[in-house]
């Protein structure tokens, strides 16, 4: 008698034990097929298109930091050959000009970096150069931010802070049309 009543109770509920297995299968399927691609990169704002080339000849020579990368992936910075490894410190010195030298930028707001490459330049080299230039600015922003607000510079800072920093050291990088050397 007792046994019978217990069996009745059992048959009333649906066995949901296998539901978990089915859901697990689906979960594993999604885990395997999807790739969490962390997309990171160097964010660049391109200048709007205009037919005429910007004229940098009317700028004072001391304010222009010209970087040329040729088809052999060699670097020429202000008429001097340079290694990519030294570019960051050199650019920082040029922008901030701590010793107030006559041949470096008057002040950070006037500094302009002019980057020019050949069509045969390796993309890898180009990006390394760009990375160093951006890194130079990032370092300077960081230093300024530490001095002014006592915190490290990052993109998560409030907009007012970032604006204040970038007003003092704006990122100005002009890219000239490349020369037709070494195209494959």
């Amino acid at each position, binding site marked *: *008698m*007792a*046994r019978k009543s*217990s069996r009745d109770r059992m048959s009333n509920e649906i066995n*949901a*034990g296998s*539901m*978990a297995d*089915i*859901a*697990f299968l*689906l*979960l594993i399927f*999604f*885990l395997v*097929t*999807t*790739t*969490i*691609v*962390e*997309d*990171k*990169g*160097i*964010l*660049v*704002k*391109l*200048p*709007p*298109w205009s037919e005429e080339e910007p004229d940098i000849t009317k700028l004072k020579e001391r304010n222009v930091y010209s970087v040329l990368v040729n*088809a052999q992936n060699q670097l020429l910075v202000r008429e001097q050959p340079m290694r990519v490894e030294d570019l960051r410190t050199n650019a920082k010195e040029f922008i901030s000009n701590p010793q107030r030298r006559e041949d470096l930028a008057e002040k950070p707001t006037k500094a302009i970096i002019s980057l020019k*490459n*050949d*069509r*045969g*330049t*390796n*993309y*890898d080299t*180009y*990006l*390394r150069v*760009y*990375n160093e230039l*951006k*890194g130079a600015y*990032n370092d300077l922003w960081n230093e300024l931010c530490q001095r002014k607000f006592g915190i490290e510079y990052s*993109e998560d800072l409030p907009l007012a802070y970032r604006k204040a920093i970038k007003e003092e050291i704006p990122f100005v990088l002009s890219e000239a*049309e*490349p020369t037709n050397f*070494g*195209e*494959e």
Partner: protein
Amino acid sequence: MSKFSKKRGKADPAISTASLPDIIFMLLFFFMVVTVLRDAELKVRVVTPYASELTKLEEKSLVNYLYIGKPTKQYQATYGTKPRLQLGDKFSEVRDIPLFLEKHKVKVPEAKRPRITSSLRVDGEVTMGVVQDVKTQLRKSGQLRVNYSAKKTPD
């Protein structure tokens, strides 16, 4: 006999697993929402270079991808070994970029359109010529937010 069965009926030793599927389903939905299925099959070889000053791309729906690289082995017979541009899932020319951008743009709500970013996933061995052409075309199309895809330099 009856005493024994009574005892068992009262104290059920089995832990209820009825909520387990719900938990797993929650996990499943979380993953389904968070991850984005790769829609394009890569037909060009892309090994992005290393860099240190990286920015993370936040919203995947606001990003369109342009791949540049040499065609992979199976396509070299038809397309050669010169670096090519891939838009979506097919080989394209530089002049196809405006249409590609426009097709992506209509899917984005109007308020978010200024934040559309083009992710250039370019192979490190490619020469700048083809990249420059793409950049010029992007500028002409008014797509100025560009992200050069790169990997974090290992310390």
